Every structure is written in C-alpha cells, then in structure tokens.
C-alpha cells in the first residue's frame, strides 16, 4: 500500500506475505508442511497462528479468496458474491426451510458476522462435562481459554456514540418492561457504527481473523493457499497424512488437482463442510453428520411512527439474556434494505407497502437454543447439504420468544409488529400478543434463518456418540483433528465465535503436545541453539 500511515485505517496497510493464489496455478501442485489447517475462520486462523508461533511449518488452505479490508463496499449483491458461500443463497432443507449464510473468504465467517463475543454459558459447559464425559471443559477450566480468546478477538463494548436510534428504542423497550439487558462485547477496535458488519467492515474496526490471526500466522511463517477446495483427507493405514483437492480457476471452476502432506491435518471448514470432508474421506463414525444444531432465528420487526434510520448506528450493541436458560436470546440487528426485504412477507404491492417503512423499522430476532434433529449428508454431487426438523419444544420456544420480542417492541412504542408466521403476519397492538400463544403450531408456517450451525462432528470421550475426542482428535484416526463449531456437543444458545476460538486454543495446546518438535526448533537445536529451550 502506498498510503501514508495515519491517512487510512491501519487495517488497510496490513501485509499478507506467503500467500499463494490457486488462480495463478498452471499445473497440479504438491505441498508439504508440518500442520495443514483447512479453513481460515475463527477456528482455523487461531489454530494456524498458534502452531506457527510454536515454530511449526503451517499451511492454511482456504477455499475463498483474500479480500482486503479496503476492497469492502456497502453493496450487498457485490459483497455477498465475494465473501459468502453460494453468494449467501444456502438453505437448510426441512419444514420450514431455514435460510443459512456462512463466509467463504480468508477470515471465514468472522469477516461477515456481527462480531459478538459471548462465552459458552456455564450450564452448557457443565452439561458437556456431565453428558459427554468431557474433562476440562468446566467453566473454571475454560476460564483461561476464554480470557485468551477475548484478548485475541479484542472484545470490547461499543462506544455510546455509535448507538443508533434503533438501539435506543430497543433499550427503551427493555427498560420499560424491567428486563435486564446485556452489553455486547464485540471483536472490534474503535467501531464507529457504520453497520456494514455483514458485508465486511471497510473501516477496519472489526478485528476479524482477516486482520488479526491470519496476518499473525503469516508473520509467524505460515503459508496460505487461497482458492483451494479440499476434497478429502489422505491416509496411510489409520493415520491421516494429508489432503487432496482442487485448485479453483476463473469462475471457481476446478482447474488443477493439488495434494498437501503433513503429519497433522486440522479441519476448520465449518459445521457443514468439515463433516462433508470427513464423509468423503470415508471416516467411519455413527455420529458423523448427525446432531446438527442450527440456533434458528425468527425475525420480529417493529414499525414505529418516528424515523429510526436503522442504517445509521452500530449493528448490535445489546442483547437480552434474561431468558437464556429457557433457550431464548433476544437481539436486534439493523440490516440493509435488500437483506431485510428477504424476511418480510408478501410479494409485489404488499411487500412494497412494508418496505416503504424501512426507515421506521426496528428489526429484532429471537434466537432459539434448538433441540431438534439436524443432519449433514452428501448429495449426488458429493457436496454436503443439511436437513433440520424443529422439535415440538423448539416450536414452543420460538412462539414464546416471538411473543416476548413483540412485547418488547410495543413497550418501545411500535405501532405494528411484523411476525415470522405465515398464518399471523402482523399484530397491531400489545393486546394481540396473546394470539401468538393460541396460534396453531405449524412449523412450515414459520420463517427462519441462521448463521450459527454446530454439532455435526461432535466431541465426546465415547467414540460411539462422538466424532472427535476431548481434544478434537477424530476417534480412531491418528493425525486428524477438528477445531470448528462442528465439535460442539450441543447447541450453545449464544453467538459461537468466542466458544470456537476458546476451544481451538485449548485443543491446539493438546494437539501440539502429540507432535514431534517443530522442524524449525529441531534444525535450530542441530545448529547449536534451541528456540524451544
């Protein structure tokens, strides 16, 4: 970059050395390293940086491209196509279908999430210990990992000067109801409330993996291969020895094959593609792909008389955790018109009448700690697809969460509330909230979306009901581990990024202990010095 320091955000001047683009390849390629990390999101980037700083020779393999901070714009169609898998058009099949979005770029979903940093709730950690026999996941044992995760993520609350009118309305509603409200800590450095989080933060404030752990890994000597899709893990007997995949050319068409070899393969491709890679690799585990949890999110939109200008102010500054033990999280999030439009009912003139009120809308959601059954399977094209069925309990929880969120909206002064139910699309006053409780329970009539999937390669000490062990190692296979949300044993009920990072840090320490000393330290020792000493 030629810009003078201080004239542009510091994140615009980050160096990305050791990056190889698959699009530049002219033939089949072979790589060797000591650790291969597949994926560069919250789990992968943290693992890569940690291994690199220990002195291991690390190769990160990312299917998406490297998009620098200064290339981010506020245009959703452009950024969805650059940063999201399937341009953000993915869905989880079932009744109802659930819209799903995840990142596909260097930095993974941390580039396009809201940056919320929440620890795994203590009751969830206790259930993992009790129900899955996992040692060292108690709140006390996880404390240092969460602390380290918060430091890496640069977790901090928003400055009050970034609160938009929509945030103040949300807080008014919470306070009028006498509920408690929780201040979000988000991974950012002096957010200025642009609210472009979902499309990449051009201000550089969001401290995503793109501007933190990926550069740290590269500075530590790691290499990064972008535009490379891993097909499967390679084995020698029951030991993983590398991966094989395709280098993507123009328009993401497979151009050449590649092979990469290492004594340790770490999968961090997310809860859809990590199990997909394991299935294509013929890893045998009865829990593989099962137990998918989706943390579904039902949108509730309040329409107010006064303008709220939801495009001005931080994405999300507060959440309501008061009902978390009942599986309900309530939050608001302002999104661009094109993205809000997807969640509003109707077509043509009906939709137009709703969207004309965009600047008067407060968009909130109830996120549900789900108990239904989901699954990742391979389709005829050998790509993973997801199915999910809400449990009756989930349906009840959604109805209760939507009723609570509607209560909040009317308390905040909404004159109308739009609901995610096809058979009750709107209510006009608080007196009508009771209609939600008496509504027929029709899962197919609920509109849901999610950005939090987990549990499809879950962790358990027992190989019979988990895919990976207490350290993230795949049961029955040496040299193969998982460090993303696939390994969560259950739904955690909160935004998952900090939990992914904390568990990755914990597991990397354990995985490193099983490896030979890094090549760098071995050669230094042979030369008379010892970096590890």
């Amino acid at each position, binding site marked *: 970059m030629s810009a003078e320091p201080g004239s542009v955000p510091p994140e615009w001047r980050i160096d990305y050395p050791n990056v190889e683009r698959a699009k530049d390849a002219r033939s089949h390629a072979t790589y060797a390293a000591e650790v291969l990390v597949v994926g560069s999101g919250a789990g992968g980037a943290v693992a890569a940086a940690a291994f690199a700083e220990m002195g291991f020779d690390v190769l990160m393999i990312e299917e998406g491209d490297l998009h620098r901070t200064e290339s981010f714009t506020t245009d959703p169609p452009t950024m969805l196509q650059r940063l999201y898998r399937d341009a953000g058009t993915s869905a989880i099949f079932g009744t109802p279908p659930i819209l799903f979005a995840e990142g596909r770029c260097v930095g993974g979903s941390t580039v396009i999430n809201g940056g919320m940093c929440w620890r795994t709730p203590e009751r969830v950690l206790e259930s993992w210990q009790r129900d899955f026999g996992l040692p060292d996941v108690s709140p006390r044992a996880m404390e240092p990992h969460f602390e380290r995760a918060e430091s890496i993520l640069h977790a901090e609350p928003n400055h009050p000067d970034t609160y938009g009118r929509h945030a103040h309305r949300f807080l008014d509603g919470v306070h009028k109801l006498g509920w408690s409200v929780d201040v979000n800590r988000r991974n950012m450095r002096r957010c200025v*409330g642009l609210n472009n989080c979902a499309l990449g933060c051009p201000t550089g404030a969001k401290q995503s993996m793109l501007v933190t752990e990926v550069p740290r890994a590269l500075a530590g000597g790691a290499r990064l291969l972008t535009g490379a899709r891993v097909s499967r893990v390679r084995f020698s007997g029951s030991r993983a020895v590398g991966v094989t995949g395709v280098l993507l050319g123009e328009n993401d068409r497979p151009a050449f094959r590649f092979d990469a070899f290492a004594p340790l393969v770490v999968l961090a491709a997310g809860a859809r593609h990590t199990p997909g890679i394991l299935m294509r690799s013929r890893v045998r585990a009865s829990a593989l792909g099962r137990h998918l949890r989706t943390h579904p999110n039902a949108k509730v939109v309040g329409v107010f008389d006064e303008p709220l200008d939801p495009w001005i102010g931080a994405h999300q500054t507060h959440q309501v955790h008061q009902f978390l033990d009942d599986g309900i999280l309530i939050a608001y999030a302002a999104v661009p*018109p094109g993205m809000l439009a997807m969640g509003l009912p109707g077509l*043509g003139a009906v939709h137009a009448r709703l969207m004309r009120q965009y600047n008067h809308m407060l968009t909130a959601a109830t996120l549900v700690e789900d108990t239904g059954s989901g699954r990742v399977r391979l389709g005829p094209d050998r790509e993973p697809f997801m199915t999910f069925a809400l449990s009756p309990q989930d349906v009840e929880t959604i109805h209760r969460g939507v009723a609570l969120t509607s209560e909040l909206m009317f308390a905040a002064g909404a004159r109308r509330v739009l609901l995610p139910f096809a058979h009750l699309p709107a209510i006009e006053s608080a007196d009508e909230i009771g209609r939600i409780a008496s509504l027929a329970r029709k899962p197919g009539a609920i509109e849901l979306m999610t950005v939090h999937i987990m549990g499809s390669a879950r962790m358990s000490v027992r190989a019979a009901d988990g895919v990976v062990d207490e350290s993230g190692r795949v049961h029955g296979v040496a040299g193969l581990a998982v460090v993303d949300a696939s390994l969560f044993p259950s739904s955690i009920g909160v935004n998952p990024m900090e939990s992914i990072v904390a568990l990755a840090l914990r597991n990397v320490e354990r995985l490193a202990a099983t490896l030979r000393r890094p090549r760098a330290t071995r050669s230094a020792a042979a030369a008379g010095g010892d970096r590890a000493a």
Partner: protein
Amino acid sequence: MSNRLPAGLDRGSIAILRAVIAAIRPRGSGFDQPIDDEVLHAVDGFLRHVPAPLRLGLPFGLRLLEWGPIVFSRPRRATRLSRLPREEGERYLEGWLEAGGLRGTLVLGLRTLVFMAFYQHPTVLESLGVDWQGRARERIARRTELLREGA
C-alpha cells in the same frame, strides 16, 4: 436499460425469469422504478455462484414454474406463467410459497434474489433516503482520525 442478455441462462429461462421478476418485484408506494432489466442481470450474477446442482436444475425448475398453472393453479389454467396477468402471476407464486417443500424453496430463493437486487439498486436506495456508501466514506475518515488522536 441494458439490451445485453444475461450470459448464464438460456433464452427460454430468461423469458420465464422476466415473468417471475414481474410477478415478484415491488410495485407502488414509490417503488415503480423501471429497473427489471438490471434486476434480471443482478439475479443472473447471483446464479453463477449457487451450487452446481441448483444452477443446473434451475432451467428445469423455471419450466416447472412456467407450465405449473396447468397443474398447480386452483382453478387450473390452460396457460403459462409468462402469459398470466401480473397480479394473477403474483397469486400463483404465492401459492407455490405456501405449498412449501421444493416448490416453496424455489420461489423463496427467487424472491430473495429479486428483492436483494431490487432494493439495493441505487435509484431505489435513493428513494428510501439511504446513503450507506456516503456514510461509509465519512465513517472511515472518522475512525482514521479517532485512531490518530488515540481515542
């Protein structure tokens, strides 16, 4: 308005997609911008990124939509989607949405793409009074200044 045809779809699919856009796109309430061609091109841009099975299956799905009035309309209509009056086409697509399953998913996906392209069009954003890009320039400068001042 562009006369260029989208590159990713065959002519038959494009004709059906035009009818789908006409039925789905917002109308009235200040949303009568003549931007259907731009929406068509933006939808085509998205379709290049969807998974191959969906991309390959889309022409079949569009033809099912086109000829669906004969099978799925109540009462049945011996005509095609692209020949239905716009309001009737809208009701027909709503029926598919309510049916759920693969039919519902197809229309839900098309609706998502049409709305994304329509409401993010610069003329539509302007009519909503939203200037996100201008605010981005101002916020980037503001953060740079705050960091320089050590705030």
